[in-house]
């Protein structure tokens, strides 16, 4: 009994010391730019960029492994700030993702069983509902991150473009196809 306790304690102490020394000795300084970039990202860890959370994305951007336009919920604003921080080419008004139509989740009420799986996953609390009650999405809070779509057991959730309302409507750019209909 006493031998066992002693052995385990010695083992723990010894390994702990080694680890502690190693941590001090081989410490890698995180570039401060990573923290700076992370502060700009939404912090919802939604995973739309394909990196493990906002921290991962910040590291990738700092290394230059990912474009500054990687964050769909952040949109153009974040892309511009990231470009300023990293000194990368600021996103133009042309094609790339940052000007894409924002998307939000939509729940088909017919299919919703009220299982609460989706609203537990929502990083911004944009889904409201309760057990065995039909859930719904608050469009203004939804960032279109896809987390709820993946967990829905009845496939009742889809992503759709954010509905246009009188509040967010604006005149189309003259000369574009959208303008021609007016």
């Amino acid at each position, binding site marked *: 009994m006493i031998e066992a306790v002693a052995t385990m304690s010695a083992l723990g102490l010894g390994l702990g010391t080694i680890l502690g020394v190693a941590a001090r000795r081989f410490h890698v300084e995180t570039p401060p730019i990573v923290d700076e970039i992370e502060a700009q990202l939404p912090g919802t860890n939604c995973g739309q960029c394909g990196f493990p959370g906002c921290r991962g994305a910040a590291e990738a951007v700092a290394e230059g492994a990912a474009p500054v336009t990687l964050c769909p919920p*952040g949109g153009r*604003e974040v892309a511009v700030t990231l470009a300023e921080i990293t000194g990368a080419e600021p996103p133009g*008004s042309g094609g790339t993702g940052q000007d894409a139509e924002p998307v939000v989740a939509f729940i088909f009420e017919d299919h919703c069983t009220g299982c609460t799986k989706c609203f537990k996953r929502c990083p911004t609390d944009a889904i409201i509902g309760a057990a065995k009650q039909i859930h719904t999405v608050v469009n203004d809070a939804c960032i279109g991150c896809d987390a709820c779509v993946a967990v829905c057991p009845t496939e009742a959730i889809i992503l759709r473009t954010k509905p246009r309302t009188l509040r*967010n409507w*604006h005149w189309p750019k*003259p*000369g574009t196809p959208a303008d021609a209909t007016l």
Partner: protein
Amino acid sequence: MSLISLSALRRTAGAFAGRGGIHPETRKYLSADSPIEAMPLPSILRVPLQQHIGAEAVPVVARGDQVLKGQLIGKARGPVSANVHAPTSGKVIAVGYFAAPHPSGLPVSTITIRPDGADRWGARLPRLVPEQATPDEIADHVKQAGIVGMGGATFPSAVKLDLRKRFALKTLIINGAECEPYLTCDDRLMREFSEELADGIAIMARALGVEQVIVAIESNKPQAIEAMQRRMLAIGCPARVTRVPTLYPMGSEKHLVQAVTGLETPARALTAELGVVVHNAATAYAVHLALRYGEPLISRVLTVSGFGVTRPANVKVLIGTLVAEILDHCGGLDGTPDRLLLGGPMMGLPIRSQRVPVIKGTNGILALQKSETRRHREMPCIRCGGCIKVCPCGLMPMEMHGMIQAGDLDKAVDIGLLDCVACGSCSFNCPSNIQLVQSFNYAKGRLAFQQSQKHQQEETKRLAETRKARMDAIAEAKRQAMARRKAEMAARKKREAETETPAVPAPAPTAERTG
């Protein structure tokens, strides 16, 4: 004598400090001689809850309710909002979304009323004698009546009357310029209801506590000027009618102030900072009706005109009447119009469907034929400077346009995009038919969109943080509960152990067993 006329001449020549303005063909003759006529009760009324700048009103009636004329059906929400009242008696047949009188045709929450034909008044607004009422009471009355600026901007009038609390106001200017071509409704109102208008002006002057009143009317409305001049004594405080030159955009608030007082409003500031408040002539009429008769804002006078209308007219319509029914009242359309506009031809909104209602800020319905509209192929800018010459705000439209085309909105803002009043003078004057003002409207909308995205970004961050805090709190609470349970368990075990072996001191084997 000669000095006076000289100074008057100078003022006329340099109405906007020597810059800008255009002279479009006014075509007011189409409807200027038609007296205001009341339209018979329409078959259906669609009353939008968002007819003003600010927050949407909240419906206070439900489907199936019987409403009386003047009854409150939408309650203002927040400080900048406006009440909405039933324009006639009838049954509420729907509370829901219908197409808005807006170029997008997007839905807006609307209360649909089927008139019962009796046009029966409900309770009117409480009685108030303006001569004895305090400014606060008058402003509150105006607020209850749901009155908004009727020149088109639809800013809640009560908020503007309350400006006296923040600024020292000296002058009230009544905007009777009506500089938009075709429109004649304010002209007719001033000619036919000058006494009522003067009364409304007097009430507003009292509410604002101003020292003087100036009624500004463009020189192409001599009858209106004469009619108003006859009533100036009734206003009570020093009041006069000023004839301003016929020059578009004279009716723009800041430009009118400059033309009348010579003072230029700083960029993005309120005219109230100069001690001047501007109200529209039609708003004064609405204030008169609200204070003297307790009538909320449920109808308005508008001009139906354009070569595409069989019988151009000035019609008094109930708010919520469909454009189609008003056009039918005016003899219908003459052929298919090239454009159907709500408001004037310079700043009016094109609509896609006739099945949209008129709202508090609609001052005209225009059906323009091909000969009146201008749709030419856009050609390259020849840098003639024509747009700079006519810009009443002293901006450089061609430069801003170039920046917007290149996608650099921030640079366009730097050279004054946000000071543009979207009057359209630049587009009107451009020999290459470049869509200048359209481009500025797009850019302003885009900027607002980006602003809202930024706001959403911050909100998302906040939401994520609150969620994380909540999750952490839950986890912490769980951990504590677990620890408490463990402690309880241990205590119980200890108690049990004590009760099992009461007097015996803890022997060594027990320690070994538990260890």
